[in-house]
């Protein structure tokens, strides 16, 4: 088995001038022409090897490096430069508001920050695009492979919503990523060997769904075609981008597929080469799967499940017409090297058919949260399976197993999955409380068809008499603190929040009054 870094070097040597990555920005639609910003395999290899040499020469420690930007081709160069120099990278997308970016930067306290988009930070030198290019070109040669991260070293750190209002970093090792890839390339009819494919990238790099398209395409010598955020919000541009992509492997959240399916032009004729659709990040409903099967009758759809803490995904199932007779759809069977146990609150394994917490054991489970040993100790552990000790992770997801298939049944706590994004309701509440005039806040998910559709905020706050305007004011203020996907759709104003006997917010009472 080759490691991801060995395989990338091999592919770069073989593919040279061929494109490894391109991105469709809004100006490609608005008269900017058909020149997509891109990177060749040779450029990726050379620039990342030389930037690795620069990092090796200029940094004193192996502290993780924050890479900030939005789908710029140089972000890939930066990711690989970090790991080739023995450092983990921590991707942060521009959709993260400045206050949260600062919280992540302070948590990581990197020695250097690589930024393809403007970023204000005084805690460490920030290399912008011009400086990155100059740094790479100023090096005489590439850094040797002996300096790269080893198997148990952290390869990347992805930050996810934390329950107290500050995000937490999930550390993924190179071995975790390699084990994920070995399984990933077997999905559908298999992705390795034969020919190189075009993979579609929807998710920003700070969301671990992007690891699926990025590394499966890098491992298999593919071409990753990315859609910028702006393009995803304009249906005309989006359909044009898709028709330019020539995509053969689709990787997205089910919500993004819903968005595309709302236009009748989203069908086989638009993406004639599409052979596989991979979904992860939230519930795939029967309705979405049926619409996809009708729009792309020749493509295969595979549903997957997994938290960031176990490297993207650990179960998979092919969505066939027979499977579609079931509702809800299962999320599938474990990958080799992963075992899923359903446990009760005391940590006892439950038999098939019983509902409990989904606990994952295996070779792709994270080593824990960055600089949070207490939180890590609470949800991570270990378990001996067949004489080998594997790391375990208690997901907080409720689920059940039947006939070898896992069924996801929602969360056991105050975390939700909204359009694929993982949100701790406490994170939104904690940030609402920072706003002027807000005395108390509770955020509840609104569900339909077993899927979270939006968030509603219940706030006890100063009121002007126009609740609608007050809601608009809070929404605008909250935007400076949390990413857009965490902003509640609806604000309900109350004089005070209902409380339970033990002094906690009575969420049940709110759920009843808010609909």
């Amino acid at each position, binding site marked *: 088995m080759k490691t991801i870094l060995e395989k990338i070097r091999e592919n770069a040597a073989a593919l040279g001038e061929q494109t490894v990555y391109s991105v469709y920005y809004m100006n490609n639609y608005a008269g900017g022409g058909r020149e997509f910003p891109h990177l060749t395999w040779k450029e990726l290899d050379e620039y990342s090897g030389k930037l690795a040499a620069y990092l090796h020469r200029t940094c004193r420690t192996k502290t993780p490096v924050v890479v900030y930007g939005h789908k710029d081709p140089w972000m890939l160069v930066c990711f690989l430069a970090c790991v080739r120099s023995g450092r983990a990278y921590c991707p942060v997308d521009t959709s993260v508001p400045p206050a949260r970016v600062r919280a992540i930067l302070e948590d990581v306290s990197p020695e250097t920050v690589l930024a393809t988009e403007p970023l204000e930070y005084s805690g460490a030198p920030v290399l912008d695009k011009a400086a990155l290019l100059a740094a790479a070109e100023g090096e005489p040669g590439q850094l040797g492979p002996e300096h790269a991260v080893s198997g148990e070293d952290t390869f990347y750190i992805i930050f996810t919503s934390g329950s107290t209002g500050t995000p937490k970093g999930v550390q993924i090792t190179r071995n975790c990523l390699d084990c994920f890839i070995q399984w990933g390339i077997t999905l559908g009819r298999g992705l390795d060997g034969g020919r190189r494919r075009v993979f579609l990238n929807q998710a920003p790099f700070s969301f671990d769904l992007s690891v699926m398209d990025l590394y499966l395409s890098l491992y298999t010598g593919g071409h990753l075609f990315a859609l910028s955020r702006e393009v995803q919000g304009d*249906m005309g541009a989006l359909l044009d981008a898709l028709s330019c992509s020539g995509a053969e492997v689709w990787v997205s959240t089910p919500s993004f597929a*819903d968005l595309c399916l*709302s236009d*009748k032009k989203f069908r086989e004729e638009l993406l004639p080469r599409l052979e596989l659709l991979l979904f992860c990040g939230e519930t795939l409903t029967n309705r979405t799967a049926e619409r996809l099967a009708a729009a792309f009758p020749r493509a295969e759809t595979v549903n997957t499940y997994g938290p960031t803490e176990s490297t993207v995904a650990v179960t998979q199932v092919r969505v066939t017409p027979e499977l579609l007779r079931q509702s809800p759809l299962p999320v599938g069977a474990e990958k080799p090297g992963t075992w899923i146990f359903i446990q009760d609150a005391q940590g006892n394994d439950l038999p098939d058919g019983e509902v409990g917490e989904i606990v994952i054991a295996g070779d792709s489970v994270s080593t824990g949260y960055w600089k949070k040993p207490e939180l890590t100790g609470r949800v991570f552990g270990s378990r001996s399976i067949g004489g080998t000790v594997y790391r375990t992770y208690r997901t907080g997801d409720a689920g059940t197993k039947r006939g070898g298939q896992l069924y996801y049944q929602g969360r056991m706590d105050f975390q939700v999955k909204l359009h694929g994004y993982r949100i701790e309701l406490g994170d939104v509440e904690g940030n609402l409380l920072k706003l002027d005039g807000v005395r108390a806040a509770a955020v509840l998910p609104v569900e339909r068809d077993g899927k979270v*559709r939006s968030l509603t905020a219940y706030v006890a706050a100063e009121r002007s008499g126009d609740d609608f305007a007050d809601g608009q004011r809070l929404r605008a203020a909250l935007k400076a603190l949390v990413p857009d996907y965490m902003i509640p*759709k*609806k604000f309900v104003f109350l004089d005070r929040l209902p409380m339970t006997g033990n002094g906690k917010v009575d969420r049940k009472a709110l759920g009843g009054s808010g609909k």
Partner: protein
Amino acid sequence: MEEMILAILAEACEDESVKDHLDIDLFESGLMDSLAFAELVFGLEDKLGVIISPSEIERDKMNTPRKILELVKERAGS
């Protein structure tokens, strides 16, 4: 007809207040995002048989409840 359209819109936005703010900019106010718009399109097709292709319509032609009402009534009539 109008009531039905507004009901579909309110369901897509998950907010009844759209019925009382016919001239509000749905996107700027955060009442509607791309996904809620997709829900609206599915709803109009399923319940009224009116097909709207998001790629063919400029967003500023459908950014308030009133504009949506007019467009859908026009499409349903033709």
